[in-house]
């Protein structure tokens, strides 16, 4: 079930109202049932796969708490193996066997693995990582093993963040299922407003920009350089609005019921460096990698070459997390390289960087440069085939500047889209000062956003980009 659908509005209305009508002791069961219904709307049978990992992790958590030493490590290993095994089969099996078979053929090795291309369960990487964070935290002693199987299942399956995050930590979420949330009108209004912002970002901005981006990327060889520049910039904002729009709806829907999910975005395109960008983009994933991979590798408390290697490992894994395809690996590696370049420059010219960041012009220069790097990296994220990436850059450097209206838009819509992007950017710059979830202005903002969404929304039930991960 996608958030930008009428089905979801009906579902949300039923679940949220029933949540407040039910006695507290039954609420977790309601949310668990609702989450199952929500997930089964995609491919029902995949609930079984999710159920299997839930059972394994539930018992792993209990045994992790009960045992010490080597046995504890074995239970952690079993849990991680089960989670990563599901990921390996459904997400990476085809990638590995296909690449292995190609290599074997190239070197005339007479070994070929059977190739199966399984249909990827929606949001597999998200809920797998959330499940893994539970067993790791229990192993580390930061979280008590959850005895209530229903509550643990709900921790993995809580519908607002089940298929595209934010990837929660057990310390933040599990205790909230035990707390009694009473109706708080201000909180309900604030949650609804955040949901409306999310809908606006998705259907007014992201899906509008997709009308230019999708056809341009689908037919790269016939695009002028200008078209590709426009499509690339639009894609940077499309994916931002698409994903942060989803997060807003997820966080808002949870807030209405009284749950507080972690923030996933913080004005990422106002970042002045790549590390700054990653502190603002998909925060729940970047902190996951930081907490569970980067620190485990030693973080920056190691020699400089080892530190650089740690950074590259984390970014390549992050790319691989997004998809079993080389283009995602390259995308991750590019971000790692950008980060290393920045670190090296800062080490060589420490004063220069600090001086420039202190001036307004310098800050804008850094913002622009960071955005440019991120946008270049998105090209690899967006285009799965190497041949097409080559075509993209060949067309880009040709320097052809045909009429951009030959994209899917006329001049008015192009201008309107640019205005939306500028508006969003200004909003992000001043987001600390602008209180869009101000409950005093609830009705004017709500009605205004509803009006804008209706009139300027592109209603095509387009799935969220991050569902595929």
């Amino acid at each position, binding site marked *: 079930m996608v958030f930008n*659908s*009428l*089905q979801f*509005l*009906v*579902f949300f*209305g*039923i679940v*949220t*109202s*029933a949540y*407040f*009508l039910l006695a507290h002791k039954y609420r977790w069961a309601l949310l668990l049932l609702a989450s199952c*219904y929500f997930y*089964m*709307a995609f*491919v*029902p*049978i995949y609930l079984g796969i999710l159920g299997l990992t839930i059972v394994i992790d539930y018992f792993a958590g209990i045994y992790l708490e009960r045992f010490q030493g080597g046995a504890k490590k074995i239970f952690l290993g079993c849990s991680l193996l089960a989670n990563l095994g599901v990921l390996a089969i459904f997400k990476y099996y085809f990638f590995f066997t296909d690449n292995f078979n190609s290599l074997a053929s190239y070197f005339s090795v007479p070994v070929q693995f059977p190739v199966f291309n399984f249909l990827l369960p929606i949001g597999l990487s998200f809920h797998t990582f959330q499940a893994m964070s539970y067993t790791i935290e229990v192993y580390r002693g930061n979280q008590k093993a959850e005895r209530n199987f229903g509550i643990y299942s709900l921790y993995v399956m809580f519908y607002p963040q089940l298929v595209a995050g934010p990837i929660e930590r057990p310390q933040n979420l599990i205790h909230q299922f035990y707390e009694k949330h009473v*109706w708080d*009108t201000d909180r309900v209004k604030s949650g609804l407003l955040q949901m409306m912002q999310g809908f606006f970002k998705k259907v007014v901005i992201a899906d509008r920009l997709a009308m230019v981006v999708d056809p341009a990327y689908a037919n790269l060889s016939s695009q002028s350089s200008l078209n590709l520049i426009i499509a690339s910039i639009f894609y940077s904002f499309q994916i931002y609005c698409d994903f942060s729009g989803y997060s807003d709806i997820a966080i808002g829907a949870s807030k209405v019921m009284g749950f507080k999910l972690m923030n996933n975005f913080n004005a990422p395109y106002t970042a002045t460096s790549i590390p700054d960008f990653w502190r603002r983009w998909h925060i729940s994933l970047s902190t996951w990698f930081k907490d569970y991979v980067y620190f485990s590798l030693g973080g920056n408390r190691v020699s400089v070459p080892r530190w650089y290697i740690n950074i590259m490992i984390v970014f390549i894994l992050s790319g691989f997390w997004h998809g079993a395809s080389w283009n995602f690996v390259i995308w991750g590696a590019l971000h790692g390289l950008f980060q290393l370049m920045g670190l090296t420059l800062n080490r060589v010219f420490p004063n220069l960087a600090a001086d420039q960041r202190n001036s307004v012009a310098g800050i804008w220069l850094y913002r622009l440069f960071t955005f440019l790097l991120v946008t270049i990296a998105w090209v690899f994220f967006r285009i799965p085939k190497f041949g097409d990436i080559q075509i993209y850059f060949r067309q880009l450097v040709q320097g052809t500047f045909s009429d951009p209206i030959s994209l899917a*838009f*006329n001049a*008015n*819509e192009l201008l*309107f889209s640019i205005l939306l992007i500028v508006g969003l950017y200004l909003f992000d710059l001043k987001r600390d000062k602008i209180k869009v979830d101000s409950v005093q202005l609830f009705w004017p903002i709500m009605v205004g956003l509803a009006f804008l969404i*209706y*009139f300027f929304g592109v209603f*095509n*039930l387009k799935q969220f980009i991050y569902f595929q991960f």
Partner: protein
Amino acid sequence: MQKLFAFLVFIFCALTLYLTSSNMGMKWITRDRYSRVGAFGADKYLYGDLYGLTYLSKFKKVKDTNFVSMPAIDQKANSDTAKLFILGDSYLYSFFKEDPRYYVGINEVQFIRWSVANPVEINPFKNKKNILLIESVERNMSGLFNLNSVKARLDRVEVAQSKLNTRQKIAFFTSEIDRVIKENLYHQSLEANIEFAWFNFGFWESLKEFKADFNLNFFGRVDKEVAISKDQNFLYLAETINPANVGSSFSDISEVQIKTQVTELNAIQDYYKARGFDEVIFSIISNPVSVLKTENRPDNQLIQRIKSHPDFKGKLMDATEGLSKNASSNFFTSDSHWNQRGAKIWLDQLNSQLKNSVYLGN
């Protein structure tokens, strides 16, 4: 107070889900909505299905929704002669009743829709002449006119479990579970049903038209499924215009593709004749744009090329020529279908074909 509010929201949403998830509920809503006029009446199909997609005020034309009137009675038609099986689409079932009196020499008709949810098993009658008419509009033809597709609608086959290997059994079993859950929990048209229930009211109409007109005049676009003809007088389904779509009248179709299609048609005919049908008639109904010729560019002549292909050994009914005479009066301007006049032209042509088939054996 909050509890009361939550209760009202729950009742409203639960009722919406209940009604829009059941065919009975939707029938009730649809019947009730179309029985009213004005603010509480439905507007979606009243002015044509393409108006219902775009809501462009210029194309708000009241559509005649009566059935085509009966043709002149042929005396011979009263005799007990033949059964007509029709596998067809909305071009037929929206305009003709399942009534043998429409068809010359036919005293029994069975209509099977391409969109049939559960395939039916059709069996020719032993003591009658059996005619199978397979009809489709041009845009859907390539996907439908092949033996597997026809068999999937007309030859219900129970999957023999014993013949499947383990992997196939697992795949079959899991897909069955998926299907059963989906069918019982999520109505396949749920989104469209909710949209109909909540927004298909006359009082939304001016708002919808304002948005559509604004999008057209300011952004220069209409709903992506629809295109406006070059002469600005007709709405078309966009897929029939865009050459990138296989069902477009302007798509590039090679001779090899035509030959493949002809082979498929021959295979269908051979298969059903072997199953006991006396005659198989194909009918491809031209996309409106192929007949109305508003786009000032040559179309791919799909039907004519199939019909005249030397390997084609069947009967293909093509009403394009008849429809082309005074073409603009044979189609609704805001609907993807022909109007009653267009339907009648096709029916007359079918009846002359049936007259030959039933009485003269041609």
